[in-house]
């Protein structure tokens, strides 16, 4: 082969690489908007977005939207990849503390959130908690997937209870009787994502306990209030629950419910939803109630879902315009309704919407919004708080007490963990 041919090979290779790169560049202008969303438990919710909202937007503006669905639990790592590589999506669903973790990479969407608040009945307090970072809205709160009490009306009736107990202590007394009748309670104490935080944070708060003060510095977990909550949790577990709750993840209590193993748990609306679809007999005797109150009040967890636009996206203006359109009452109301009330609005304008009449037993989820907070409240949500949640500090404090460790020891461990986390701010 003559020498010059090597140069030819190089030329061809370079030309090939250039050609391969070209279409990618050409796409940057006028490509569809990419939106990331976690797969919904309610099929019609994703379907409505794909089959109605996207075509409508295309009709109105000529802009295409791609709705990329990630599997449950993998959204945070998918979002992190998009953020770290600076490409892959223009806007995304964000859960819990992620608007705060990603604040530097999110576009200010205050205009959308302010307008939404004004036109749609005003935000619940927890809306600001979930979307506002240092005075600016970095994400537009969409909903809570509330965690409430699910209870078996037939078995409660067997021990003479027809209305869900109002306080934790009353619930405990009922649970003792039900466990004796082989109808134990089942509350997640393991390392899931939602059903553990769903009742343990509200329990801690309702006894007056907190991890960190509002200043985001002072660790206050070591208190008499926390001790009372821990003591309650220990006896609540021992006298009312199944042993297995300690290892439960988020699917476990649903499974136990459908196999008629437990008489009370803390879960999202999905239990009733699934029972109605697959186990109608169980659905008939399933009811839902707000969390019981403790000496310091009644609380709920804000299992927040919001939407944010990535500020590094070349299509950020288009994505911003799309989010504004999406959050308009016309679209938003229908999107909520497509999932009945599985996603509870964070604005008050939907409180009397027909979606609440589809299943009146879901109404407590609406009423719980007024007392809902993000995990770690009242400390400001930030990455230290996210670390404490990821390390299951509060969950394991309660769970260890349930396996027999002393209240003093478990609080001491949680306290030292939190101090270590908050030290390196």
């Amino acid at each position, binding site marked *: 082969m003559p020498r010059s041919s090597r140069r030819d090979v190089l030329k061809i290779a370079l030309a090939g690489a250039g050609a391969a790169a070209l279409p990618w560049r050409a796409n940057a202008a006028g490509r569809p908007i990419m939106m990331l969303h976690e797969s919904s438990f309610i099929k019609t919710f994703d379907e409505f977005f794909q089959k109605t909202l996207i075509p409508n937007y295309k009709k109105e503006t000529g802009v295409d939207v791609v709705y990329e669905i990630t599997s449950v639990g993998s959204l945070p790592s998918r979002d992190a990849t998009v953020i770290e590589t600076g490409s892959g999506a223009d806007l995304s669903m964000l859960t819990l503390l992620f608007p705060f*973790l990603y604040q530097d*990479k999110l576009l200010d969407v205050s205009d959308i959130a302010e307008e939404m608040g004004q036109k749609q009945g005003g935000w619940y307090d927890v809306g600001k908690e979930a979307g506002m970072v240092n005075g600016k809205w970095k994400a537009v709160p969409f909903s809570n997937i509330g965690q409430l009490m699910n209870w078996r009306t037939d078995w409660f009736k067997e021990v003479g209870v027809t209305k869900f107990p109002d306080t934790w202590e009353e619930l405990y007394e009922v649970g003792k009787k039900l466990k004796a009748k082989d109808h134990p309670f089942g509350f997640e104490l393991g390392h899931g994502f939602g059903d553990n935080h769903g009742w343990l944070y509200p329990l801690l708060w309702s006894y007056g306990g907190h991890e960190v003060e509002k200043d985001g510095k002072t660790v206050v977990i070591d208190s008499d209030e926390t001790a009372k909550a821990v003591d309650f949790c220990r006896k609540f577990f021992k006298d009312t629950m199944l*042993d*297995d709750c*300690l290892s439960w993840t988020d699917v476990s209590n649903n499974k136990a419910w459908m196999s008629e193993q437990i008489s009370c748990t803390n879960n999202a609306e999905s239990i009733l939803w699934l029972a109605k679809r697959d186990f109608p007999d169980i659905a008939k005797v399933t009811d839902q109630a707000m969390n019981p109150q403790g000496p310091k009040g009644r609380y709920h967890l804000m299992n927040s879902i919001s939407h944010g636009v990535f500020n590094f996206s070349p299509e950020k203006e288009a994505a911003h315009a799309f989010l504004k359109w999406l959050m308009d009452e016309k679209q938003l109301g229908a999107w909520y309704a497509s999932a009945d009330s599985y996603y509870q609005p964070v604005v008050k304008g939907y409180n009397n919407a027909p979606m609440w009449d589809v299943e009146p037993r879901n109404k407590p989820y609406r009423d719980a919004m007024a007392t809902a907070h993000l995990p770690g409240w009242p400390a400001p949500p930030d990455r230290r708080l996210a670390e404490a949640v990821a390390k299951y500090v509060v969950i394991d404090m309660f769970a260890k007490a349930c*396996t027999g460790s002393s209240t003093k020891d478990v609080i001491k461990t949680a306290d030292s963990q939190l101090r270590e986390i908050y030290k*390196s701010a």
Partner: protein
Amino acid sequence: MVIRSATLPGVAARPRRPFSLKSWADRGTVFSWLMMGPPVLFIVTFVGYPFFYGIFLSLENRPVAQPGTFVGLANFIKEANDPVFWRVVQNTFVYTGVATVLKMAGGLGLALAMNQQFKLKNVIRALLLLPFIVPTVLSTVAFMWMLDPAFSVVNRVLVIFGMPKPGPSWLGNPVLAMISIILINTWRGLPFYGITLLAGLQTVPAELYEAATIDGAGSWQRFRFVTLPILQPIILIVTLFSVIFTFADFQLVYVLTHGGPQNATALFATYAFDIGMGGGQLGLGAAVALAMLPALALLIVAITLYLRKKDA
């Protein structure tokens, strides 16, 4: 007679051959580099880069979505003060140690049994690979049902044999949870040991056994003095791989217990993932993941040295 190359006729006079890609590629060094190039490039890109980036990250305070700042060993110091981290260290060593020993003993037994002559030998050998072939996530979900208190086939059997209902809480009790994940890992890893050792067993020449038998060796002695010494290098290599895989296990624990109850089953990989992804602390997560490096590196060096010494 002394032959000097320069005086050989024809050599000096031969004209320089024109460049040919074929002969160039045929040259020993060029050929070996051509063959080595792609894998080296692959390793540098997909193993080397993430590895060194991991080390770099572990020395930074690097929240997700924010630029990192160099903090030296602060992440490692922070971990050393975290009681959960030490729990994770303990868990990982127990998990790896016990599971490896069980897999080694079980795998050897399996290989010895499979080395016998029996009907449907090949079919059964192929079936044995199933636990290894089935995706971990799927087989773990199956175990999740088998250990579930309501549906547990294990507990059902135990209850039939007189244990009071509902039987042990396999995943709810911290000790039982660790035992459960060790057994499931053993179940999954056994075929790897079994099949590899079986391949080794088949290389043992029959004459050696015959000679040993003539010398009066019984079956235990034949195993001890013929089989085991020949299998030893293979056992070491399989153990090396097995320890690495087990040490860095993620899927099994993530699906089955997510590190619970109370971190009783949390391993390096799951804990690092929770901190890095769940908590958005990439630097700290990398530091946790890297903490398993010294132990693994020591093991790899020790086994490699041992094998070299044997070869020499």
